[in-house]
């Protein structure tokens, strides 16, 4: 297949238009997608902040409960009062604990622990399934070796202790046993500011966070890590509390970007996780540090929300589709436009090309877009001009050629066929005569005293005489005969169509008689005569040369004998 200019131009233009549409679409899609991802990250970060705020709220609520209980008169009375009244005080506190725990499903356990007796629990209510359980007697445990007791006892009144988030291994903790737990505690102080005991609330970390996460879209994944980055909450439960089973699983290992967060360099980080476990489903995530302002062994926890990048990008699919459609439409329009443009450019060219191809001398170029004002019009006009020139020159050339051809075959002076044409006609006639077995006659004519005319009246007179002779010869021969001038004052008459031999003499005589007409040159009467030698085919030769020389010889014989007469080559 040959690539025409139209195809080439069209395909290049179409390609360019498709490329432009494609590139624009791609760029728009990418920008839009990045914006979407960014928006998703911002959204995640906002959600993370909301969660963090609610975590704080939960903590503050628990703190308020603790303060209320620490200041509740029965608490202090139970710790320092006489044993006799302790029963009713314990009853009061238990009831209060139960009320609060019913109110707050995230409370696993509430306790009043004394500073004395190695941290013996004095009042304790555990959640056990759906029930609340008052723990009493031997089931009460000594807790002074736990930091939530020893540390809280050192706190001033009204402050709150927050434990590390751990798995609760304290046996007999009922619903809380083996569960992720955070403990909040406040000291119960007497008038002198001595801490006599602590109020402790065990919070159900998982339950609390599940309730928080339940408001989030389903694809949001919640992460929680402690100050060291150990996961406490993770969509994959086996990755939580790794330190508890001797295999730490760290946030900064799974999400390397959070390292800066753990090291305290930043307070929040947005990231895209697409390596390791996230290689198959890349995630977009927001992590933030939640500073803990109350007394705690951890000064911060890290909250994170993640969602699959694909779910973010799902939103961009519709957008991508629209962009694709627009880009596709634009591309097609560009394609069509390119084809039109290519046609528009090449059609006049094709027209011209066809017109030029059809150009010949006979047929002038038509249909050139001469009226156009652009480059194509200019080109067409140039073609037209060129064509006119060519036509003109061709006509001249043709005329010249015809003239040359005439000159080559006719005598310029007399207009009679010259020797060359005569020879051709002789050849043809001889051929025909041979074929048809018919006779043929050649008369060789030479003017008598021609030199005398030249000498006496000049060459103009000679020329005029020759012309007159030629006219006379033509006049006295048939149309079918050829009268030729061999050169000088020699003429030959070829009698082509068969003439009876006996009539030849009369024809020759007629020619001689024609000379008897008076001819004047510039007022002078000139007498012109000539001698004729006649040869015949087949008698006098069967070639042109033989016939001519026979006739010539006959003519000489006449010239030497008498002049102004005729004679046959073969004397009969």
């Amino acid at each position, binding site marked *: 297949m040959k690539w025409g200019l139209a195809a080439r131009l069209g395909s290049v233009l179409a390609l360019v238009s498709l490329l432009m549409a494609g590139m624009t679409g791609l760029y728009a899609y990418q920008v839009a997608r990045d914006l979407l991802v960014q928006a998703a990250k911002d959204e995640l970060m906002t959600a993370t902040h909301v969660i963090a705020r609610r975590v704080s709220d939960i903590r503050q609520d628990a703190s308020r409960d603790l303060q209320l209980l620490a200041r509740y008169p029965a608490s202090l009375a139970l710790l320092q009062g006489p044993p006799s009244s302790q029963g009713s005080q314990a009853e009061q506190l238990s009831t209060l604990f139960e009320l609060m725990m019913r109110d707050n499903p995230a409370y696993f356990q509430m306790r009043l622990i004394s500073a004395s007796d*190695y941290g013996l629990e004095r009042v304790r209510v555990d959640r056990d399934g759906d029930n609340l359980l008052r723990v009493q007697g031997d089931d009460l445990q000594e807790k002074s070796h736990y930091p939530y007791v*020893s540390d809280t006892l050192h706190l001033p009144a009204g402050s709150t202790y927050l434990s590390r988030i751990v798995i609760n291994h304290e*046996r007999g903790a009922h619903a809380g046993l083996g569960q992720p737990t955070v403990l909040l505690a406040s000291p119960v102080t007497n008038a002198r500011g001595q801490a006599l005991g602590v109020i402790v609330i065990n919070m159900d970390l998982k339950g609390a966070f599940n309730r928080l996460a339940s408001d989030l879209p389903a694809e949001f994944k919640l992460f929680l890590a402690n100050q060291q980055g150990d996961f406490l909450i993770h969509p994959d439960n086996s990755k939580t509390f790794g330190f508890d089973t001797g295999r730490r699983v760290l946030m900064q290992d799974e999400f390397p970007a959070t390292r800066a967060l753990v090291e305290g360099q930043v307070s929040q980080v947005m990231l895209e996780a697409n390596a390791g476990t996230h290689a198959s489903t890349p995630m977009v995530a927001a992590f933030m540090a939640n500073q803990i302002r109350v007394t705690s062994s951890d000064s911060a926890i890290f909250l994170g929300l993640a969602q699959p990048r694909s779910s973010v990008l799902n939103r961009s699919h519709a957008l991508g589709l629209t962009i694709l459609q627009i880009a596709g439409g634009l591309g097609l329009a560009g394609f069509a436009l390119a084809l039109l443009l290519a046609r528009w450019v090449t059609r006049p060219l094709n027209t011209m090309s066809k017109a030029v191809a059809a150009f010949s001398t006979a047929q002038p170029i038509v249909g050139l877009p001469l009226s156009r004002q652009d480059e194509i019009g200019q080109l067409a006009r140039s073609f037209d001009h060129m064509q006119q020139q060519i036509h003109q020159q061709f006509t001249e050339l043709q005329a010249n050629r015809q003239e040359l051809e005439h000159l080559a075959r006719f005598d310029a002076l007399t207009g009679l066929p010259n020797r060359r044409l005569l020879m051709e006609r002789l050849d043809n006639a001889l051929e025909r005569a041979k074929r048809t077995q018919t006779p043929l006659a050649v008369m060789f004519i030479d003017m008598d005293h021609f030199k005398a005319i030249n000498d006496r009246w000049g060459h103009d007179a000679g020329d005029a005489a020759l012309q007159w002779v030629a006219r006379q010869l033509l006049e006295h021969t048939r149309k079918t005969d050829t009268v030729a001038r061999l050169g000088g004052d020699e003429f030959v008459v070829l009698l082509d169509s068969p003439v009876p031999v006996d009539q030849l003499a009369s024809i020759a005589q007629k020619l001689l008689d024609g000379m008897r007409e008076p001819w004047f040159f510039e007022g002078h009467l000139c007498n012109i005569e000539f001698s004729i030698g006649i040869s015949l085919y087949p008698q006098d030769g069967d070639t042109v040369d033989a016939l001519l020389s026979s006739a010539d010889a006959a003519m000489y014989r006449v010239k030497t004998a008498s002049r102004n007469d005729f004679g046959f080559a073969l004397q009969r």
Partner: protein
Amino acid sequence: MLTCATPFLNWRWLPLLCLVGWLPLLASADTLRVLSWPGYADADLVKAFEARTGSQVSITFIDSDEALWERVNQNQGQDFDVLAVNTAELQRYIQAALVGPIDTAQVPNTARQLPRFRQLGSISGLVHQGRVYGVPYTYAEMGLIYDRQQIKAPPSSVTALWDPRYRGKVLLYNSSSHNFSLAAQSLGHSNPFQLGTGQWPAAVDRLIALRRNALGFYTQPDESVQLFRQKRAALMLANYGSQQLQLLRSAGVDVGYAIPKEGALAWLDIWAVTRQTKNAALAHAWINFLLEPAPSQALVARQGLANTVAEPPYLHPKDRMVWLEPVENSLRRQQLWERIYSGDRVARVLAP
């Protein structure tokens, strides 16, 4: 937990581990196939050994007792010539006939070892039916770390942990087995790893008393150092031994280190030769080589582990080690300890 070589586990060993895992396949008569903990067979030492003996050494590193047991069992010990294992673990290898007796005459460098490591009979589990099954190589002991500001005289006995003067100032390690052994030591039992039926209530009482004396319990070295500093502890049972000592000292705490007269519970890694070894002579040469000064020094300098040829600066020649042994019933110890640790009183702890 006690195989404290675990901290040396590092994932950077993994490629090497994978690589050397294949090497035994290429083993020839002049190849020594070693199963080792990271840090026991550094490349430069291995090269020196190869140069001297004209042999090839292929090392396989393991990072836990379980991995070690699995490796050796895989082909009835045929894949290895020599391995490092602790004395408590060694017992099951001997029982399964995976390791063979060692000809100490072929390990002349044992003469360089400290006397307590030469008296193999006194190290429980090393000698069976008169045959020696291991050469001690490295160890870590659980001494007592004390704050020199608060305790002027170094504690001499484990009973210091129960001393009411230090009430609420004692840091302990949260482990069932060791703590029962510790209680047994404080009660004067000759074998702290085997509690008799009648000895349990006393041990439980003892541990409840220990708990009541405790500031708290730790599990990790870093955690212990943090607790020690922040809560101004006076005394600590150093489960990680010298490692914790170094950490505390580098943290600027003025601490001392004491080995109680009852002896410090300690793990001891020994080199053992497999029964199926293809090159017993080379295996013995390897053990002998590692007792030379250079490898022994490397152990201290590079790994912070004690060697058996020189006393560490913080130990005295008279200090006694009580090498860990399998306990009589680890499940029961664990169950009781969980109750004790949760704060139960004696009636509840011993309840069925």
